[in-house]
């Protein structure tokens, strides 16, 4: 157990994507504020009345455009939840597995911690998240096939967002889920031997249903470990079983006398070797203390999940709810979104152009070669993609003579 905790601490999920509620709220607020100021500055600098923000930019009498009303962090949070539910529906529709959906949801939520919904388009980013989740889970679909499942015929819209997503999730592609822990738990419960099979099966089924929705649409992954989330879901499914499992796990149980020397000692498991467990009383006390702490943590996680039980899927896709709660925010969003960043294809094109224009030498290529070809490449960059690429190839192949 200790080794598993230690291992979790090494994971990128813990290192980069675990926060206290206060940290998380602060991060989101910051993203919201930065988006506001950046969009405001952008709208102020170009009083053009083109495209999506036209309503918002009706010039004042003095000629400067008035600023739109921005989304609040609370409104952003509602939108993120709404789009996660959309992402899960999209995943069902595309028939990707439960792990891919869960990973996609985690990517999407992570992305919108440092980025505002006003900055990048959630409708596209949810498909980007699902697409990249497939890849992160080792499935590599053709982009054309993938987007066509959603009635889209512009693969570039999704590909253009892939890089953005990767940066936004800080190149950490591994998401740790509670699904395997649930399997382990039901096996453990069966091993206890005195619980009806039917009861275990029912609890496992319900817990799985919960894991496929509740932690994904709440902040559970940011605050709790996979095992804690699993126990919370199990507790919602069958509180008795979850408590039984927790007491069993944290209560000192003397090892059966026959399973001694033959069992190989787990190498990473030093803290739980039998020698340390010998003083039963001490163990029992520590065991119960830990148990109480775990119960408290699981209870808190349970409360979080209980707010979004699987039945809430219906809520998020309900037309009346959409009209009353989502549509007004979407209307507001249409006026305050970032005019430069909502079109991912354009954004990518602009970024490439910028990269091409940037001529500072320390950028990308080794500094130690001052060859003219290289300099050309640096100056023209990828504004002239084909030509430049060929030159670069010539340059690198150089030492071996002409490419024949």
């Amino acid at each position, binding site marked *: *157990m200790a080794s*598993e*905790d230690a*291992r*979790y*601490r*090494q994971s*990128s999920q*813990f*290192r*980069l994507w*675990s926060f*206290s509620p206060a*940290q998380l709220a602060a991060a989101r607020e*910051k*993203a919201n*504020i*930065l988006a506001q*100021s*950046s969009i405001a*500055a952008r709208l102020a600098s170009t009083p053009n009345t083109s495209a999506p923000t036209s309503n918002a930019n009706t010039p004042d009498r003095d000629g400067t455009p008035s600023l739109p009303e921005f989304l609040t962090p609370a409104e952003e949070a509602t939108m993120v939840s709404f789009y996660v539910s959309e992402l899960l529906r999209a995943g069902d529709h595309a028939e990707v597995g439960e792990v891919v959906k869960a990973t996609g949801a985690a990517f999407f939520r992570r992305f919108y911690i*440092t*980025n505002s919904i006003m900055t990048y388009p959630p409708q596209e980013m949810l498909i980007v998240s699902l*697409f*990249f989740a497939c*890849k*992160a889970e*080792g499935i590599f679909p053709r982009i054309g096939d993938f987007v066509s499942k959603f009635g889209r015929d512009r693969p570039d819209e999704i590909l253009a967002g892939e*890089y*953005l997503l*990767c*940066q936004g999730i800080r*190149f950490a*592609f*591994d998401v740790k889920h509670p699904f395997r822990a649930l399997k*382990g738990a039901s096996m453990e419960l069966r091993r206890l031997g005195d619980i009806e099979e039917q009861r275990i099966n029912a609890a496992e089924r319900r817990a799985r249903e919960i894991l496929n929705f509740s932690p994904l649409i709440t902040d559970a992954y*940011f605050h709790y*470990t*996979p095992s*804690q989330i699993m*126990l919370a879901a199990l507790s919602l499914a069958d509180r008795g079983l979850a408590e039984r499992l927790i007491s069993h*796990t944290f209560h000192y149980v003397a090892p059966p006398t026959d399973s001694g020397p033959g069992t*190989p000692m*787990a190498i990473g498991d030093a803290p739980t070797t039998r020698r340390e467990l010998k003083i039963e009383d001490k163990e029992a006390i520590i065991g119960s203390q830990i148990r109480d*702490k775990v119960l408290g943590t699981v209870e808190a996680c349970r409360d979080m999940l209980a707010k979004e039980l699987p039945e809430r899927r219906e809520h998020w896709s309900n037309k009346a709810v959409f009209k009353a709660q989502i549509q007004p925010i979407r209307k507001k969003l249409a006026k305050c979104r970032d005019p*430069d*960043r909502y079109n991912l294809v354009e954004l*990518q094109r602009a*970024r490439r152009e910028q990269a091409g*224009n*940037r001529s500072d030498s320390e*950028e*990308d*290529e*080794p*500094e*130690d070669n001052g060859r003219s070809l290289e300099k050309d490449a640096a100056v023209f960059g990828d504004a002239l993609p084909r030509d430049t690429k060929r030159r670069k190839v010539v340059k*690198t192949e150089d*030492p*071996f003579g002409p490419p024949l």
Partner: protein
Amino acid sequence: MAVSPLIVPPADALHPHPQKTAPSPLKRQTSAVPSSNGTPALVRPPGQDIQTGLSMSLDRVEQMNEQEKRKYIKDRKLGEGTYAIVYLGRSRQDSTQHVAIKKIKKQKEFRDGMAPDAVRELKYLQELHHPNIINLISAFSSKDQNLNLVLEFLPYGDLEALIRDVTHVRYGAADIKAWMGMLSRAIWFCHENRVLHRDIKPNNLLIAADGEVKLADFGLARSFAEPGHRMTANVITRWYRPPELLFGARHYSGAVDIWAVGLVFAELIIRAPFLPAENEVEQISLICKQIGTPTEENWPGVTKLKEYIVPSEVTPVWERSAYMGRFGAVGVDGVDLLVRTLALDPRKRITAHEILEHKWWRMDPKPTRKEDLPRGGGSEEKMGSDLKRRPGLDDESNPRGAKVARKLDFGAAK
């Protein structure tokens, strides 16, 4: 179960302190934006100072990326593989600190965004932190969305070069034991974290400045599959590929890596690839001849594998004693370990955990201290040999497999 309430969020993941000493940027990134006091004042959008003159500023994430990138200066090219070019890099702050910057090539034939190798390599290196696994220091994207991995710099080449360089490099049983120990720990750690490497070979074992061997190249790695999930059999460079993969098994385990570990072990001893076949059919024949023919008797169920086909003349599995002549340099216990890694039936093959418990480690000679291990000629020489080993035309669906075979033709005494 990681349920311990002791796990609390890291104090400052989003608002870390400024770098102190050893920069480990993936773990702690300095936030580019001075923390605002919550006043939504109309401040200049972040990034404009960096990007003066450009119409579009950088957002927060782009700025983090920019900062990350600016921490390093790219020097000369170190080498080139199928999907990446590797440069020597220096820390801008401390120019004595070297890194390797692995720039992923744009793959023309892969039109579906970030290439699989890059996704896998990043995914696993982000999670696996171990003294015998190459350390990923950072990742950033450069202009035109090229992905760059910042890796620890490993200046002394790889085990393949060492093994081949018979004129300059001498080593003995104690050195082999040290290298094998490091490889075994690396693979144990992968499996412990439910990761299959799927490309173990001497060429992917790089040597650090302090002599430590590091497992690199996670471009083919994947997580352990759920039971019943099918995986591709087209992994692991042919000479190191276990029989179950050659027979087309789609369900397999960490045992595939162990076979490859065994072949690295054999190669370290005889200083030549043990089973260097020209193609897959020949690879199977060679296994049958040198190790024994897989049959229902020694491997129940093997004949049901989709591509099971063996030479009609059945060779019984060789006894340990048969190995003593060629591999005796590592002693009886070393040979025992070798034979266990080369068990035909993957279920009977020794596990990484069991390898670490094997008695060979405790026998004499003691493994050489890593500082005293022989090492390769260093990066200059290394670069020369890499240039020779550039990939050419690929004739196989798995370009890595094809390429590697050709690569080895250079050094291997046929």
